[in-house]
């Protein structure tokens, strides 16, 4: 089945009836996933949006519950559920991989995060493959195929003039069944996407175990500003902080994105901070991306989207770190055993 690119807008218009469809767009100069509608210009030419699509599942601020005290002095709580049917259309394979990571975090290992689960349940993902890459893209090195996203409900492989439509899940099949007016039978060959940036992940995960006290971290962290840019533009970073805004007798408990780059992140009530300096914070972030997550979930928490490489104010570059780790002659712990 193929979808002519000319039919994208009519298709989106038909899809947007009755649910929220998010498309990559430049809104007030910021490239992000925006609600399709009047005044929103789809930007399928963007390889990557500046802001990742994670806020569709995990908003920067998410109201959790409202609490108050009744006349008898008893606390009452009422949960918010703001999830609704959503479609993300034009998400890239790297961001689709990030949803795999988020699913692991929020849905597995005995914990199900209801807010995430509700939103995830109601999200239809339409992934568009990449025919070209940005200079910062290195998804292939992280095991992502720029023209494939197995976990997408619908995969649109870029074949130049047309997309090759693959319904990959029952949800996707049901959706595509409604697309008859816009698609046609046929097949096309996906355009091969050439990436200019590649890293060698071979042995990196294992090597990192022996590198905890290596000067590499000092050299890397020393130029970090400890701002939260990398974590907020990262499609897989998922740390949050729970807080509340209160009035006299009621309040709202919410969670909002937090960043392990902030000193306050690990600050304990008693004043002790187990990660007091940049060194510990930067090390933690990259260890989490490249090792801890791998050990817990069997996959890397970096999907190679290149957003942090692009946006870091001091060009602190994860690909260089990976290269440097590769160049370190440390015996990986796994082999030593």
């Amino acid at each position, binding site marked *: 089945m193929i979808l002519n690119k000319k039919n994208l807008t009519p298709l989106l218009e038909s899809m947007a009836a009755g649910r929220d469809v998010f498309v990559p767009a430049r809104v007030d100069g910021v490239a992000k996933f925006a609600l399709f509608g009047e005044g929103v210009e789809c930007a399928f030419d963007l390889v990557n949006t500046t802001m990742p699509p994670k806020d569709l599942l995990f908003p920067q601020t998410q109201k959790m519950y409202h609490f108050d005290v009744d006349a008898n002095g008893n606390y009452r709580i009422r949960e918010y559920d703001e999830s609704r049917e959503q479609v993300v259309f034009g998400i890239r394979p790297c961001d689709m991989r990030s949803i795999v990571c988020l699913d692991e975090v929020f849905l597995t290992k005995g914990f199900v995060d209801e807010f995430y689960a509700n939103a995830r349940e109601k999200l239809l993902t339409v992934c568009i493959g990449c025919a070209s890459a940005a200079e910062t893209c290195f998804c292939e090195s992280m095991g992502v195929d720029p023209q494939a996203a197995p976990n997408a409900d619908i995969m649109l492989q870029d074949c130049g003039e047309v997309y090759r439509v693959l319904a990959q899940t029952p949800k996707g099949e049901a959706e595509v069944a409604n697309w008859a007016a816009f698609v046609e039978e046929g097949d096309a060959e996906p355009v091969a996407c050439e990436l200019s940036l590649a890293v060698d992940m071979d042995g990196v995960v294992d090597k990192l175990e022996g590198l905890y006290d290596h000067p590499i971290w000092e050299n890397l962290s020393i130029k970090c500003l400890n701002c939260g840019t990398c974590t907020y533009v990262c499609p897989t970073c998922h740390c949050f902080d729970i807080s509340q805004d209160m*009035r*006299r*007798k009621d309040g709202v408990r919410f969670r909002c994105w937090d960043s392990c780059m902030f000193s306050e992140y690990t600050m304990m009530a008693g004043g002790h*901070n187990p990660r*007091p*300096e940049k060194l510990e914070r930067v090390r933690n972030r990259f260890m989490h991306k490249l090792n801890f997550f791998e050990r817990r979930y069997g996959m890397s928490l970096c999907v190679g989207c290149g957003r942090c490489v692009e946006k870091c104010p001091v060009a602190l570059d994860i690909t260089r770190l990976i290269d440097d780790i590769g160049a370190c002659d440390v015996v990986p712990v796994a082999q030593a055993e």
Partner: protein
Amino acid sequence: MSRIGVFLCYCGSNIAGTVDVEAVAEMARSLPEVVYVETNKYTCSDPGQEGVKNAIIEKGIDRVVVGACSPRMHEPTWRKLLADTPVNPYMLEVANLREQCSWVHKDREVATAKAIDLVKMAVAKVARLQPLHSIEIPVHKKALVIGGGIAGMQTALDIADAGFQVTIVERETSLGGKMVMLDKTFPTMDCSACICTPKMSEVGNHPNITVKSYSEVENVSGYIGNFEVTIREKAKFIDYNLCTGCGACETKCPAKVTNAFEQGMSQRTAIYKMFPQAVPAKPVIDAEHCLKLTTGKCGVCSKVCPTGAINYEDEDKLTTETYGAVVFATGYKLIDWKPLYPEYGGGKYEDVITGLQFERLVNASGPTEGHVLRPSDRTEPKSVVIIKCVGSRDPNKGKAYCSRACCMYSAKHAHQYLDKVPDGKCYVFYMDVRTPGKGYDEFYMNTLHDGAQYIRGRVSKIYKEGDKLICKGEDTLTSSQVTVSADMVVLETAMVPADGIDELAAKFTVGRDADSWLVEAHAKLRPVETNTAGIYLAGTCQGPKDIPDSVCQAGAAASKVIGLLNKDALQSNPQISRVNETLCQGDGACVNICPYGAISIVEKQFRENSRKVVRPVAQVNPGLCQGCGACTVTCRAGAMDLLGYTNESIMREVDALCQW
């Protein structure tokens, strides 16, 4: 969780007439952390207060909100009440339900709604307050008076007579100040020396007064009750313990120096007393002009001194003592008119003199032994022009203010001249004649009777024709040009603060106005206090004054000092700034903004991340801080906070109004 008690007052019908106090109480019961609400007809009455006390005990209340009249009225009452209870007196907030609510609104519903908001804000604030404690500041029962003129001497005598130790620091070699230079004093025409020199010897001999002449304040630290002052006593080169003041040295000294006391109109020796009746009555050596000290040759004084008191090796001495109170009596000087008034010759005419020079000319012990002789040729001037307001009331050239004493002393000068030169002519150019004071206008009228000719207008130019000084001016009453040919011109110049006042006042963080006069704490109600607690003002350092006013203020300053020194200790105001040293980065923005010099930056050692770190942090001196809170706003990190009005408490008050 705190336990807040809310006490709402009807104030008879003053509040209850407009505000539904019971409705406010009902709402207050629903506020967080409020455990008890009580209404009362008169909370401030004895039974009302008793009720508050009982409730505090019975209900285990730890913070109190009173909804009643203005805190400006009864906050001290409530604090006093709480002092007798387990509740800290500063765990109190007063909601102003009367002056700012019931008395200014008529609609009961609207006023009640506002009262509810005010109580909410008070509850929100009180929940965030912390107990505060005054500290006792000991008072050193000793006063320092800076300046030994008439104001300083009077202050010192009054304090000393009350039984307290006083030190006078005088930068000249003798007490006496400006008054002792004067010939006679208006309006009674007492001989100035005759009333001033007895004061000087009284001071010099008083058992409670230490005179440090030829001395200046070097350094100050501390605060009310505890000013640590370092005084530099300049080298006198004479051992005052040995010197008898016989004066043999002065008669033999070969060096000749312009005599400043005689306003430059005579000469003195290098070893000298300022004037014969000087106190201390002992000479000093003027190191700048002494031949022995400058060239190494001479030493005559040492040879003639019968007691061997001369010591050429003498050095400046620094002594530090603690004083409970400080009085500024630093006086004035005359404005340097020469650069300001080139049209009056700018100093190139010897016979254009100042009022102070005239005082010395008519003084029997002055350079002319009391004969009015003009400086240039020592002849008797037959025609004298007196010009008032030279440098005063002249914002374009000098000072905008009126120097206050000149009207009277110019009348005195005219009178004295006409008295000594009966056939002389005296013209007084004036802008206004201001004579408010007992016997002052009568004195002025007598001068007119004496024949002084008053011309209303400024002199625009003085130039020399032969040996005459031609004064051109305008008589603004007749709108005519006036030209007076004079033998001598007396300029009644403006008073300005004494030299060095800016540096000295800065050491004590005493405020100065734009003209550098020291600023009183309140122009009407605290005229002799400064904004720095424990520092007082006497005499002309605060602004131009005549002698009676100076003496008057000296007495007032002394009574303030006596009141302070009578106490053994002071209770500090605990609502002052506090530094959170963890947050403070020591950049010193707060130091800049503090009007009291209460904040300093000190290096301190901390343990941070298991490391010892030495870094600068701000430190607040609780004796100096008055609790204005200006520093808190400059502190971006919020390291500086004002106890009693903390950032947190104000923010929650705002939130309470908006969201509760």
